């Protein structure tokens, strides 16, 4: 089995990388895919093209899709079920019960957050991280680029419990070379220098915003560390504590999710358990979004690069 390889800097959506990696993983005869009739959006159909006999179209029936995954794993199969992240909430009781069943299922939720743009709030998952983190024994992954997404899909196959990957609609630059590894429970320090004054933490689209913010801050002579928190549960407390310690305990977290139970919550819980005290600026989607371009919606939500940079400056001047 060889994972798809992506060129540094090429713009590739993580949802596409999910589909391509799943298709590659299909070389394992026990991997099966389930689609909520959006396989051309989640890119689960990449698997269909190669392994139609192990692809189950469940149509727009998310409860049955998750239940079928639970049933298939009873017989030892490794199911991946995919739909828009927003619509997995419809199957939440099935996800909750699958934890009680000690079922090993993998779920992919695409089109996360306000980043989806014009389709509007009915299609935006803004609660899914909270929902999935709360499940007993779950794993929650949120890659920012195609290389990490593909690697994490492979990791998902070997994990037990409910394993969730959140993918993004838009195409963003590949950040990592093909042979980089992304162990579950880890994080990547994407940018750092000895003189870092503040840490910017993001995942998915907001990591790209954090990188742009770091560029903007660098223009002002402010050195920012940037952390890619691709594994939200389990979380890399060590990297968080090190980053906080190295940057005067000044953290900015930016997430395309409502403030409750998301990335900011995960970071604060981890630091709180480690007994570490920080000053944290938490940028998350506060209001009810509407339609618009991704840039307009992220600006309105307060999670754009400019707003991350401003939050960092405020921490430094405060």
């Amino acid at each position, binding site marked *: 089995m060889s994972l798809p390889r992506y060129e540094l800097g090429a713009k590739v959506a993580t949802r596409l990388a999910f589909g391509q990696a799943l298709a590659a993983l299909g070389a394992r005869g026990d991997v*099966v895919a389930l689609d909520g009739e959006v396989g051309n959006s989640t890119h689960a159909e990449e698997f269909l093209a190669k392994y139609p*006999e*192990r692809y*189950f179209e*469940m*149509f727009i*029936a998310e*409860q*049955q899709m998750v*239940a*079928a*995954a*639970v*049933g*298939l*794993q*009873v*017989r030892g*199969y490794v199911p991946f079920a995919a739909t828009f992240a927003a619509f997995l909430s419809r199957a939440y*009781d*099935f996800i*909750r*019960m*699958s934890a*009680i*069943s*000690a*079922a090993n299922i993998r779920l992919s939720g695409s089109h996360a957050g306000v980043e989806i743009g014009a389709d509007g709030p009915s299609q935006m998952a803004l609660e899914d991280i909270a929902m999935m983190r709360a499940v007993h024994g779950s794993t929650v992954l949120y890659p920012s680029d195609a290389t990490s997404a593909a690697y994490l899909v492979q990791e998902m196959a070997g994990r037990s419990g409910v394993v969730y990957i959140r993918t993004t609609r838009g195409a963003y630059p590949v950040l990592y070379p093909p042979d980089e590894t992304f162990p579950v429970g880890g994080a990547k320090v994407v940018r750092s220098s000895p003189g870092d004054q503040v840490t910017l933490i993001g995942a998915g689209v907001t990591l790209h915003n954090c990188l742009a913010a770091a560029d903007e801050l660098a223009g002002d002579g402010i050195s920012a560390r940037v952390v890619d928190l691709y594994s939200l549960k389990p979380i890399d407390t060590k990297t968080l504590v090190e980053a906080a310690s190295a940057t005067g305990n000044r953290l900015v977290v930016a997430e395309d999710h409502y403030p409750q139970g998301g990335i900011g919550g995960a970071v604060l819980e981890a630091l709180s358990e480690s007994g570490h005290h920080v000053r944290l600026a938490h940028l998350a989607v506060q209001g009810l979004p509407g339609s618009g371009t991704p840039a307009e919606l992220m600006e309105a939500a307060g999670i754009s690069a400019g707003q991350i940079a401003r939050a960092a400056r405020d921490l430094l001047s405060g």
Partner: protein
Amino acid sequence: MAVQTLDDIHEMAQQLRVDSIRCSTAAGSGHPTSSMSAADVMAVLLTRHLRCDWQRPDDPANDHLIFSKGHASPLLYSMFKAVGVISDEELMTGYRQFGSRLEGHPTPVLPWVDVATGSLGQGLPDGVGVALAGRYLDELPYHVWVLCGDSEMAEGSMWEAFDKAAYYRLNNLTAIVDINRLGQRGPTELGWDLDTYAKRIEAFGCHAIPIDGHDLGEIDKALGHAAEADRPTVILARTRKGRGFDEVEDREGWHGRPLPADMAERAIIELGGQREITVIGLQPGPRAPGPTAR
């Protein structure tokens, strides 16, 4: 004692009722009346149709039994006792107790339980997944039997399951609906209107078989038909909640309530006393082949 004739199976069913009462009364909680309504159907299934090597729960050829109405756990655990995989002592001292594997609703802590149930409307959809594996991936002749409650027929997920079972022509799946007409706070939406249930089931592409759920011969015939059908079968079993004990049978107010000790004593006498019958059941093996897969 060998369980062969319908009279023997009646004795088995009465034992399942008595044990469901005994364990829930001992625990001081549980759902004996919801267990008693389905005892006849389960007794016939266990003795004549379910193919399972109970000593080897991981045998890939085993049939699967899922209690979508997970609250009927006293019945399920009484069946486990009847096949000799749990003891009467465990049933009587463990049911619903802290640290015991005989939890209030079944979970796969027990090796004969595939999926946790108790949130209604989930066991049948889960069973569709197992049946998909059987028909399209394992290509083994095992059958998936799901005991459903009539109250959970109000859950939309049940209809997603019937629809997908029909779409994938899962003739290896049989749902048995225990239509005892009573829910938690009173009568169900459709009561004993088996015609309406049957029309809905057929409209979704499954084969409906309405039966008297206390007529052992009818049950036997329906289960036999289900195992040889060309599409998913739904057995609509008209039953009476609390069947076999006149003081509670078909009466409101007894959902999820164990019988007090004095009533339990009278019930066990009315049901013919405690029994210790064990059943071997059928071993896994080939069935008549169904139509080829998609």
